[in-house]
């Protein structure tokens, strides 16, 4: 019998006889598949609460495992190991070690929102992916991901000036992730961009880069928002600490 999502089962727990006849019936190959039972004692009852303390993870408890998120997922189509339904299931059961196995791909969520769009229980799986990615970094299971670096670079500029200038964000990002600015495809892209550009337009783009656009009335706004985020993060850290202590 075919097993859905067979890839989720560790290979050494799958038993399968290449050729087998039982009571005269040929049940060779996957028809005789058995899965070795396992006993898990290493789970974290409060893990769901921890993930709920991260922005986007608030509704993870609502999931009833219909699988619509994975079914609609852009990244699942690229890589079938990318499985939001499964990660939500593991979160609810507190099987952190299983989640850590996928630490190198969870951050790849492209925020296309197909999952949140289709979810019948308003779990907002897109947010859960971000919460899991944050948790993996916070606990040191992964280094800071490039997409997180990009988020911080972006917010840093908004906080200071109220706006962003895309060339600055891109250059800051390449610098922080130690990537060279001269890459063959980027050069080709830039050459095509300026092929038909009159001088005046190049000047305008240059000026926009040199004199970063800013929101004149930004005033205290950036500072107020930064303080707000710091307070919220501190409160979330305290909540997580309490969860740990009561456990």
């Amino acid at each position, binding site marked *: 019998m075919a097993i859905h999502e067979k890839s989720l089962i560790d290979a050494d727990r799958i038993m399968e006889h290449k050729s087998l006849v039982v009571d005269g019936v040929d049940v060779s190959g996957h028809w005789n598949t058995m899965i070795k039972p396992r006993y898990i004692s290493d789970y974290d009852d409060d893990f769901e609460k921890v993930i709920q303390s991260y*922005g*986007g993870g608030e509704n993870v408890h609502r999931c009833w495992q219909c699988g619509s998120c994975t079914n609609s997922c*852009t*990244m699942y189509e*690229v890589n079938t190991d990318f499985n939001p339904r499964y990660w939500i299931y593991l979160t609810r059961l507190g099987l952190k070690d299983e989640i850590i196995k996928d630490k190198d791909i969870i951050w*790849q*969520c*492209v*925020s*296309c*929102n*197909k999952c*949140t*769009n289709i979810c019948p229980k*308003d779990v907002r799986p897109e*947010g859960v992916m*971000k919460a899991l990615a944050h948790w993996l970094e916070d606990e040191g299971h992964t280094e800071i991901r*490039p*997409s997180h*670096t990009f*988020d*911080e670079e*972006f*917010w840093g500029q*908004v906080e200071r000036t*109220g*706006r*962003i200038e*895309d*060339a600055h964000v*891109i250059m800051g*990002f*390449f610098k922080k*992730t130690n990537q060279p600015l001269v890459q*063959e*495809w980027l050069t080709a*892209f830039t050459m*095509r961009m300026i*092929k*038909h*550009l*009159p001088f005046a*337009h190049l000047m305008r*783009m240059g000026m*926009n880069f040199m004199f970063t*656009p800013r*929101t*004149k*009335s*930004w*005033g*205290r*706004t950036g*500072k*107020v*928002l930064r303080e*707000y*985020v710091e307070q*919220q*993060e501190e409160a979330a850290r305290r909540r997580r600490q309490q969860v740990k202590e009561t456990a």
Partner: protein
Amino acid sequence: MTKVAYYPGCALEGSGGPYDRSTRALVKALDLDMVNLRDYNCCGAMEVKNVHPMLQTYLSARNLAIAGEQMGLDAVMTPCNGCYQNLKKAEFDLATSEDAMQMVRDLAGKADDPVYKGDVRTLHLLEWLMEELGPEGIKQRLTKGLNGIKIANYYGCMYTRPRQIFPEKDQGPGSESSYQPHFMDDLLAAAGAVNVDYPLKTACCGGAHTLSDADTSTRLVLNLLQAAEDSGAEVIATECPTCHSGLEMHQVRAEKEFGIKTRVKVIYFTQLLGLAMGLSPRKLGIHENVSDSIDFLKEKGVI
């Protein structure tokens, strides 16, 4: 006629410059009423919400408040899907959560910013054009036409998802559909284009990770480009600066890094409508696109 505050957003000030110029030229040619949203701030794009979701809500609420409180307008119009989705999300969250509304009021008080009162609505440029003119209005104003150019209409993610924040969509005839959007199709057909049956209208271009996960983005964009060509399209019409840049960038990257060449042109829908109104390609910034469509458009007799 609805007078709107025009919110171009940061992308249209930088890499999406041609979209900004063609929007302004088109709106002027169509004689519609818009003024610049005064001293706006960034909407936070797809990044800031990952730092904290409330930041995103506040940034958009601040922009809506500038239109409502400082300019006396009840509608903000943006051509950018990122800005549009963020404004719509703030509008929805603040209409459905008193707590969120209170938080926005508190923050605005501390920062001495205008306070959003929940009385400003958000329109995408496509929605505004449909409200003001519709396909019939476009037909009446045509001076040229698109000569049957075959177009795949690409809407991307943020114009329709998540559907929960767009309560005015999916309301039957006349409204936009979140599963099969058609406003761009309708306007371009009125301008003389032939829309091909394009199955990936709302598929994802990977724009959120266009640089941080470039291989995935290239793969997703190639899907879009190849499906458009398989559907018989000569042009992909775009209505989002992130999608547009992503398609252009990864079309080049696919060719340079993986040797996969595609010929389909990538053009903003505003540029296409502008050409149908007889505006010059230069005015519409068509020569600024990375995707070089000038020879193709000449061949088709559109310019």
